[in-house]
């Protein structure tokens, strides 16, 4: 089931086309990665979803119907540029943001107590934001983003500024929120966390969608003619005219080689050639990292794999 959909959205700022006929559809209860280089139009899209600005053309649908003004209660937004009132106390501030999202004071207090306890922030309640470290302030902001239990949570670069311990705490909270039923739209440059967390992604560049789909499908598709083969024992695999050895790894009495096919031949032919070298225990397409895919897509500019 699709919870959020953007159809052919365009937005122009002066002479720059920030979004060019962009479409995305986000499945319910998934983590959806919004990728793209700086200035690609991610923030513009996020602002349009948050109804901070409106699109010039195109449609936005939440749960199959047009996005309405009061849908902002269903959306939680953590902007890339974090901001809290510096002179305001943490507790008061969290309460204020909760009330702006339409939660009553009493209900907000109850939920805040739960979250502050969960993330070990209880001592901060009466501190001013300016007394907190950057990471602490980020945690506060994360709580205010999810406090009203939104159906759609939009996180723009949620991990920057966190130390590894806190980053993994936040990752776990994101997974927890998804398991509880929320859908998360994650915009990040941290490709490792995309592989770790995201179910689907869209890669945007110059306001256009360059790549879309499930993360593992995309990686498999981009594997192209590279394979990873594991043999029993420590052996040496010879190259021939059909394939090239990219990388050899001997470990635990196993040998893993990464090969690249030089000709358009079937996997069976390669396998039969490889079988001569030893006992194969695994044969997989070598999955490129999201990082590689990102760089290749953005450099190629046309969205087609670069071979």
């Amino acid at each position, binding site marked *: 089931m699709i919870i959020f959909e953007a159809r052919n959205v365009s937005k122009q700022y002066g002479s720059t086309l920030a979004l060019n006929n962009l479409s995305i559809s986000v499945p319910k209860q998934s983590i959806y990665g919004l990728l793209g280089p700086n200035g690609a139009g991610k923030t513009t899209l996020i602002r349009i979803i948050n109804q*901070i600005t409106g699109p010039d053309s195109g449609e936005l649908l939440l749960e199959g119907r047009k996005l309405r003004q009061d849908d902002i209660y269903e959306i939680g937004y953590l*902007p890339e540029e974090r901001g*809290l009132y510096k002179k305001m106390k943490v507790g008061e501030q969290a309460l204020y943001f909760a009330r*702006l999202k339409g939660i009553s004071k009493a209900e907000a207090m109850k939920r805040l107590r739960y979250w502050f306890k969960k993330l070990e922030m209880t001592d901060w309640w009466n501190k001013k934001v300016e007394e907190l470290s950057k990471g602490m302030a980020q945690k506060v902001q994360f709580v205010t983003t999810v406090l009203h239990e939104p159906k759609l949570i939009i996180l723009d670069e949620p991990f920057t500024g966190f130390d590894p311990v806190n980053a993994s705490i936040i990752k776990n909270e994101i997974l927890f929120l998804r398991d509880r039923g929320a859908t998360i739209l994650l915009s990040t440059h941290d490709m490792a966390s995309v592989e770790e967390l995201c179910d689907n992604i869209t890669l945007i560049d110059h306001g256009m969608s360059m790549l879309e789909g499930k993360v593992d499908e995309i990686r498999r598709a981009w594997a192209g003619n590279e394979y990873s083969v594991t043999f029993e024992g420590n052996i040496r695999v010879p190259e021939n005219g059909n394939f090239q050895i990219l990388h050899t790894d001997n470990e635990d009495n196993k040998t893993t080689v990464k090969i690249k096919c030089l000709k358009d031949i079937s996997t069976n032919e390669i396998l039969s050639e490889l079988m001569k070298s030893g006992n194969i225990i695994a044969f997989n397409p070598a999955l490129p990292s999201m990082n590689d895919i990102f760089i290749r897509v953005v450099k190629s500019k046309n969205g087609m794999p670069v071979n």
Partner: protein
Amino acid sequence: MSKISVIIEREYITRVRKKSFIIMTILAPVLLALFIVVPSLIMMNQDTEMKKIAVVEDGTDLFKNAIPNIKNTEFVYLGNVKLEEIKNNFEQAGYYGILYISPEVIHVPEAVQLISRKQPPILLLEHIENSLEKEIERQKLLSYKIENLDEIMKNVRTRVSVQTIKIDESGNVKETSTGVAMVLAYITSFVMYFLVFVFGAQVMRGVIEEKTSRVVEVIISSVKPIQLMMGKIIGLALVGLTQFLIWIILTFAIITAVKSALIPEQKITEAVQSIPQDIMSQNAAAAMQTTTVTTTEPVQASEFIKIFNSALNQPWGLIIFCFIYYFITGYLLYASVFAAVGSAVDNETETQQFMLPITLPVILGLFVAMSTMQNPESSMAFWFSIIPFTSPIVMMARIPFGVPLWEIALSMFLMAVTFIIFVWMSAKIYRTGILMYGKKSSWKEIWKWLTYKG
């Protein structure tokens, strides 16, 4: 709407709780009260010093008892004392100074000297001059040998005090006082200026704070930018009104407390008692015009009554209505422009280029309002009270002097139109501006923002 009230609440509470607000709110009336009370205390203390002045003539006795004693000053006529005898030891003899009148004074005005150690007060000099002039006049008249001169003089002596009375078209007569109108005009236009300017500028600072701390993006994902802007503007207006109200109450309280503590009660009761007396003497004066009021206090009291009546005769309903109307529209107009400026810049130093066009009309308005009090019917006063940017201040200065209703209506109408246009434009600029960083904002850039679609 409930969200605007949440925003208003935050703006109001965080500001009212600030130390700077509390200190300013308490300190300002104390200072103001000091400014009012201290000079009057000093004046009172000066008045209590008794002065004795020796009057000396060279051999003649033309001016014996010609100068009546006044409050705190006694004139002692030393008939047969020569100036040289006392010139160097008048202080030891207990005199403040010597008034030497040469017989030539009848022809030479400068033939009178007041010799003293200190600079004598101007009021004292005026008193001496008036008395001598009167006496010389009398003596000159005497030389014509007119019969019953004293009686004639008594009948001739008159006193005039112009009473201002306004008659409207339907013939209703109202006694007014230009003084009261001026004070009222001054207070209302100044309050207007103060609220519009100080709190309008605070709106701007608040917007800049939200923009630079980047908190604004979170907020406008929850509320519309216009709600945030209006919430801030209204919240600050309430802060301003609160502060102003406390100032008025505290100032009055302090002044009353200090006065009743330091000024002898007797004086107040004296003034009160002299009021009925004065009304009687006024009636008598109206009937006969022969009585001359010689004591000073009843004159003051009758002034007081006049001021009181005139204050009651002011069109209070109109003043209050206009004040509220012009305050709301004027404040909204300027505060929204201030908010737009705040949204367009990245920090406060960048506001300079936009500030002048905003502050110019406000300051101009205040100047025109001041000159309006001198000349409420001038064409400058008319135009500036019609033009929307200055009208809230100038019109408030004009109203106590009487303004035709059509002018008020026209001014209000133009104000309403202008304020709606400006709030709308400001909201558009604000909406785009608060999310723009690092771009050097210029007038051209802002014009572009105005044309962006939702």
